[in-house]
């Protein structure tokens, strides 16, 4: 099974310029998605998919102009198949521009999580009902 996704792209711009497109929400939106990203480790942010669902993210690593990584998962509050993964960007200055490497990896799928949670909800509700003092 394929475990990760890798794409390498080459640009004539400098790493500094390409970096802007990976870290400035107004520029990211032009090619990726709208978000409230900030290049700060630990910052929680979300990309908004065209269908108004969210990609839920947390910044893991920021090395200006060379490396950026964040957690990339779907919205566990609404999905039936929660997954998590990591997105990592590496920029390398090369002759005539920049090599940009994307690695999307560490996929983990928690298929039974929601079913499990709703199972607990059901039991807790039931317990709540049982604990209610019967009304006369």
């Amino acid at each position: 099974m394929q475990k990760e996704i890798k794409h390498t792209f080459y640009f004539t711009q400098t790493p500094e310029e390409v970096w802007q497109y990976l870290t400035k929400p107004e520029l990211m939106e032009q090619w990726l998605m709208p978000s409230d990203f900030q290049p700060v480790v630990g910052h929680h942010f979300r990309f908004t998919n065209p269908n108004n669902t969210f990609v839920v993210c947390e910044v893991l690593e920021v090395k200006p102009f060379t490396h950026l990584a964040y957690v990339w998962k779907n919205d566990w509050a609404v999905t039936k198949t929660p997954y998590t993964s990591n997105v990592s960007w590496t920029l390398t200055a090369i002759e005539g521009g920049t090599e940009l490497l994307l690695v999307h990896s560490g996929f983990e799928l928690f298929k039974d999580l929601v079913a499990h949670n709703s199972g607990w909800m059901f039991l807790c509700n039931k317990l709540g009902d049982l604990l209610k003092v019967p009304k006369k």
Partner: protein
Amino acid sequence: MSTQTLDAFQVIADPSRRQMLQMLSKQSRTINSLAENFDMSRPAVSKHVKVLYNAGFISIKDIGRERHCTLKQDGFNELQDFINYFDKFWATKLKKLETILNNKAK
């Protein structure tokens, strides 16, 4: 031995179990052959195997005196779908970035 049922999170949280799943993703194995790769007692390995089984990650089949563990594909197929989807997703998005940057360079 008491039967443990953990949720998928707890199942994957344990590094030994993750390693077992990884080994089983390559080929089916008997519990004994799994155990050879771990620095723990055979009962400890059996316990992990039971956890994986209870959570639906693997199936166990008795063949002769050996217990054969096989990965259950369902969850993994779904994961592969995610990966395929994102492979195309990023290829498309990065193409778009390329176009934007190329136009900017002109």
